[in-house]
């Protein structure tokens, strides 16, 4: 059987491989090539070397969106994970209606980002209107609006991952800790958290990359207003590519830098949290 799998391996892998090459590898390589080009549409590129990359470095809006996105990601990673973990702890205590709560918390995740963005725009603008303000009044209104939206959307998803992590902790470990006289906070710190480290790895990875890649919600909620100051990285790339004649290549160069940045951060994060995981 093992031999048979080896023998027919190419046939089984082929369809996925073709799709992967067409849908990912080819556009990715083309994208890297285009970042060194000047072009109007992607089919008429002219090679110009590193010029696009130099332009990205003295684009103040790009630099702004870089630290704005970093700040946004740090904020959301912390808030989402703390909230999700807290809710997961609560919903594994066996309180009444646990399943309903789990479902309700998970549901926001099923709604698309654009829809969420518009719904929250209405909600938040409705509240802010009482103070004669709107979400696009300043970049910080937009910032916290986005944080609220993204937390609302992702806490439920991360909660499910944490719940499964907590449920996998062997009951005897907790029991043993209790018999040894550990207080609930000691159990949490010394048993529960080390045991759910794999879930923490996954959740921080997901929230971190989600934070950097956020686009739909940003587009629908503030669309970068005011003055493109509430623009996250992905959207900055989009507006550079589409919004400025002659800057398509620069947008492409930003996209390549973006890819490198996100991969490096994700790899570092993975290594850091992985090293804290314990074997059961």
């Amino acid at each position, binding site marked *: 059987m093992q031999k*048979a799998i080896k023998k027919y391996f190419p046939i*089984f892998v082929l369809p996925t491989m073709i799709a992967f090459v067409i849908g990912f590898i080819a556009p990715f390589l083309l994208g890297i090539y285009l970042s060194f080009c000047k072009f*109007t*549409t992607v089919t008429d590129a002219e090679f110009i070397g590193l010029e696009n990359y130099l332009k990205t470095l003295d684009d103040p809006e790009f630099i702004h969106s870089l630290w704005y996105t970093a700040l946004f990601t740090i904020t959301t990673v912390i808030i989402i994970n703390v909230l999700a973990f807290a809710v997961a702890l609560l919903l594994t205590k066996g309180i009444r209606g646990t399943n309903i709560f789990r479902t309700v918390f998970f549901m926001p995740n099923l709604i698309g980002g654009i829809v969420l963005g518009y719904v929250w725009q209405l909600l938040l603008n409705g509240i802010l209107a009482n103070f*004669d*303000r*709107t979400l696009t009044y300043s970049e910080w209104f937009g910032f916290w609006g986005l944080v609220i939206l993204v937390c609302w959307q992702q806490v439920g998803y991360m909660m499910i991952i944490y719940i499964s992590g907590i449920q996998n902790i062997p009951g005897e470990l907790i029991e043993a800790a209790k018999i040894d006289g550990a207080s609930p906070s000691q159990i949490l710190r010394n048993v529960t958290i080390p045991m759910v480290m794999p879930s923490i790895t996954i959740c921080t990875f997901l929230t971190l990359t989600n934070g950097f890649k956020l686009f739909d919600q940003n587009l629908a909620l503030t669309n970068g207003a*005011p003055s*493109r100051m509430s623009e996250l990285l992905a959207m900055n790339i989009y507006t550079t590519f589409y919004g400025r004649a*002659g800057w398509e290549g620069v947008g492409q160069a930003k996209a390549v830098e973006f890819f490198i940045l996100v991969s490096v951060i994700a790899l570092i994060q993975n290594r850091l949290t992985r090293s804290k995981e314990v074997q059961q």
Partner: protein
Amino acid sequence: MKKKRILALLLAAAMVGSLATGCGSGGSGDGGSDGGNSSEATGKVYYLNFKPEQADQWVELAEQYTEETGVQVDVQTAASGTYESQLKSEMAKDEAPTMFQVNGPVGLATWKDYCYDLSDSAVYKDVSSDDYVLKEGDEVLGVAYVIETYGLIYNKALLNNYFEADWSTVKSIDDLNNFQALKAAAEEIQAHKDDLGVEGAFTSAGMDSSSDWRFKTHLANLPIYYEYKDRGISSTDAIEGTYLDNYKQIWDLYINNATCEPSMISSKTGDDATSEFALGEAVFYQNGTWAYNDIKGNEVADEDLGMLPIYIGVEGEENQGLCTGSENYWCVNKNASEEDIQATLDFMQWVVESDEGRDMLANEMGFVTPFTTFADYLPSNPLVQANEEYNEAGKTPVSWNFTTMPSENWKNNLGSALLEYAQGTGNWDAVVSAFVDGWATEYAAANE
């Protein structure tokens, strides 16, 4: 074991097979339609339309043409503010638009490598003057298909109530012919808005992307127009901003006498402003002839629609007319196949020469066109008629100089600065800087 192996092989074959047929059927479908077209030697037309106001009418017109001639015409309309991005991605496709639009000389600079020379086309021969085409040397690359006018649309019924009120200082529409009068009227209406039953003198000066072009582009045209006029030029690489104080005056007037607080305008949309005007909640609404389609059929009757020139406080502006010009030029994609180009040219000719096309453009879409074939087809749009009245009265129309603005980015930066000034989070110097310094840097960047 052997059976299993055969089964596995069969399964694999089925998988690959289904994949191949999946692709194959798609391909053969396309091939079939291509074959059908080439055997009849007709191409097809794909028009990427810029004006969402007339989206449905274009689709209807395309269907009529297909019914009549059997030539396939696809019309796509880009959502407000997304035309350039949609055009960019559509042009990269195999089935690229055969007919698209540029918004003037600056837009043409981006797309001129894609524009077919229209100098032998029927549409070009129908154009009444070369003022309405975009030329590059001897080549005609774009032909305007609509002449539009904008100004301050006003509600005659409400304004008459104001003229008749005992607290008003401006007593007739004929006196409302300069900035001082406009300012007095607007501020009095604002102060007595409850007496008139309105929410404000002006509609909300929304800076959402569906509305901000009314100010960062159309309103900004006036200071540019007067500066060009003083300097005797028609475009420049460095604007001086001599009339920016006037720009500030009118912007202050708009934001301080509107239906909402200036701090709220960042999220007000074009629809908000339209509905405020159409429901009679505001007296003045800066927009153009194209807005008629959205206004009609609401609270404001057609005979109550009028349009005032936008007065910004320049000497001699009593003789200023409305702003008239075009930023809608048809271009034909020269990279399309020859049949498709021919089909597109035929379609364009049909639109401007056939009864159906002319009726649709003039009566349904409400366009004034630069074509000689339209002599009997003057639109019923009351806003267009307002413009006729100004022309007949001998007022000088303001030309559309915003087509010479150096880039979209310039407009966006100006819009942002205007918004921040209105909200109180920025000052007017930033607007001046975006206008003057931004012009020079953007011009240099666009023409490097």
